[in-house]
């Protein structure tokens, strides 16, 4: 029997990375999102 969380988990897929790979991904996304936020001028709510 599925619990209520299962439907929400359909939003995800496992994504396994080593610590080094994770750090690299975070650094890359840090730059990527920084560029986009500067571009859009987004501000916190």
């Amino acid at each position, binding site marked *: 029997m*599925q*619990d209520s*969380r*299962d*439907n*929400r*988990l*359909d*939003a*995800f*897929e*496992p*994504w*396994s*990375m*080593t*610590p*080094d*790979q*994770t*750090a690299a*991904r*975070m*650094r890359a*996304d*840090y730059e990527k*999102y*920084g560029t*986009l*936020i*500067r*571009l*859009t001028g*987004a*501000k*916190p*709510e």
Partner: protein
Amino acid sequence: MHRHIRSAACALLATMPFTVAAQSYPAKPVRVIIPWPAGGLTDVAGRIIVQKMGENLGQSFVVDNRGGATGTIGADLVAKSPADGYTLMVHSTSHVANAHLYAKLPYDTLRDFTPIGLLVAQTGLLVVHPSLPVKNVKELVALARAKPDQVLYASSGAGSFSHLAIALLTSMTNTKMLHVPYKGGGPATTALVSGETQFLVGSPAAVVPHLPSKRLRLLAVSSDARLPQFPDTPTVAEARFRATNSARGWRCSVPPVCRGPSSIASMRRSRKCRTVGTTASTPSSRGA
């Protein structure tokens, strides 16, 4: 899917070489701060994974939800916690976005935390209101070009993944669309269904329930490849716009970084750090 998420926990654990120090860690319950309210997507995924970690390590991993200010309140708490491996955090893409959204944070996003691993990925679904006369991403972009600032897209908030995914698309296609931010993915989806806006990139959990009834129409997915759940739905990249790369949100586990006389790099190579899987060093290292 629940089973697959658990496999992610196992994979995370596999990054931790259980050698000598594994016999002593964790010697007490581990606090896991999730800087989002209970019941949210990060909370749901995080709880499942840390529960599995606790089962595998034979110790309690206690989730502590510290939501607020798009995750910065909880992140600050973690940054100021002892870097002894007994305080972890499960955060989302917002962790890196916050560094650019806020003029000043009480912590350094990259230097004050050391990642353990990405846990799960979240693909965005680009959906439109059925009244919008487009059948694919190319037509959507063509419409935006023909009517600058007249195509309205909803998001779960300024700077959110749902906002930035479309910002990426508009940037790469040199189009202008009007952003309408809402307070969360739920309200944004509701607004789209009601016709207040015309499209959004949302999570499957939020938008899929509206697809069978045709209250929303799925145009594309934001992942690198098509999703097994929607094999007939193309990726945004398949529209072949220059450099429209994938946009995926993620959830990761990040404890406070170890500080001390040794460099972060050497800490991360150390047996204890790797064993803990948190790159924590000695309890006294932080602030040393």
